[in-house]
């Protein structure tokens, strides 16, 4: 997956998790939780969907690396590059 595809995949997951939110035009450098009504339980859902859809494991220690859209892409790129 390219960085663009990874970004789209993440946004698609978030859209399902917070369906009342407008996920278009997210600032990739701003914390997702500052832009969306996204709580810690939603965050666990994101981790679960990454596991289910892409086989990616995100250990709890790495959760801070998913803070922004850009940091998500940075973190996931090595794991999803050949998917």
């Amino acid at each position, binding site marked *: 997956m390219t960085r663009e595809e990874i970004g789209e995949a993440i946004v698609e997951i978030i859209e399902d998790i917070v369906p*009342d939110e407008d996920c278009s035009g997210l600032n990739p450098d701003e914390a997702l939780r500052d832009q969306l009504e996204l709580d810690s*339980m939603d965050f666990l859902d994101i981790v*679960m969907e990454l596991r289910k859809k892409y086989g990616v494991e995100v250990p709890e220690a790495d959760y801070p690396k998913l803070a922004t859209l850009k940091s998500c892409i940075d973190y996931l790129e090595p794991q999803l590059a050949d998917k």
Partner: protein
Amino acid sequence: MKAKSERIVITGVGVASPNGNSLAEFRANLLAGVSGVQPYHIRYFGDTHAGICNFDPQKCQKRKEIRVGTRAGSISVYCANEALADAGLRMADLDPTRVGVFVGLTEHGNVETENEVYELSKYDYDVKYWTHHHNARTVANSPAGEVTINLGITGPHYTVGAACAAGNLGCVNGLQQLLLGEVDVAIAGGVSESIHTFGIFAAFNSQNALATNADSTKASRPFDKARNGIVVSEGGTLFTLERLSDALARGAKIYGEITGYCYNSDATDMVLPNPERQAECMLRAIARAGLEPKDIDLVNTHATGTPAGDVMECRALRQVFGDAIERVYVNNTKSFIGHCMGAAGALELAGNLPSFTDGIIHPTINVDDLDPDCALPRLLIGQPRQVDKVDTILNNSFGMVGINCVLIVSRCRP
């Protein structure tokens, strides 16, 4: 503690029925003979019949609330919002610490557990794919708790597990909390989401107690010779209950007064009902209301359409009413909507409350060939009837493992 002489009245009704998303729609369909039972297919079990609600959850909930919560929660939230609005109450005007939510349930958590196990099957049953939502969704207070979150209610909430007597027992709990002075407004009744679990259909089928019929709308047929079991349905009814003094002070519309109630246990069998205990429950409820059987105008039966259960309830009714059985009208709401399980008592009561004002009794449908063992003299079959007056309704609800709950609701005379 408040004085026990306080009287408790129904000031709002929130209904999610397989044949109506409001009391007005539900009542109109009961008078017009419109069934809410449809063909239904569920995973593993296959084709059957069910009463299915089609209210719009998004009327009261955000999409995320619906995703994170439960179907029982959505039904509860819908009914609670409707019940408050119908009572002319807004949370913004109420002290949220003085409002309570008391929801009767037949069971809870089976739907979520079955769904999650099914989901897990796609991942070779590796439990690392099990959702973290499972516990919050399946704790027994969840449907009532979802109401408090939705409406910002900070008073007490709990659910009442009482099998198919739960709707009535939920009402009793609301009444008791008002009498105890724990709350000033009780949102109380029952809900059921059971049609979303295959297990309930499969279990009734294994028990030879699941209704079969070529026509879904004819499948629920209490008192008919050809009845062959239960139609499982979903639904809910929550009432706004208040102390009469409060209701009068604010000039509230009053549907009726809960004048009597009783809940007891058969102590005999896991499944089979006990007409002796049913009769005892009815008599104690009537006595608590300060009435005699001859004072009851309408009995809304629990009868579910099982061959044995309907006969036993009729036997209990004959025992309770004696000669007065000749004058008391008897009807059945499940013949329209199937068995809404934990919602049944409250929902069926709701469908009959308008009789106090319109003087009409809704019939029992699908009785083409009356079982002589169920031939109560004034069992109303086929068509609604305008009567002189309905002042007092006795509402029966009985459940598995031998739990009975009877409500007496009367025209309110302040």
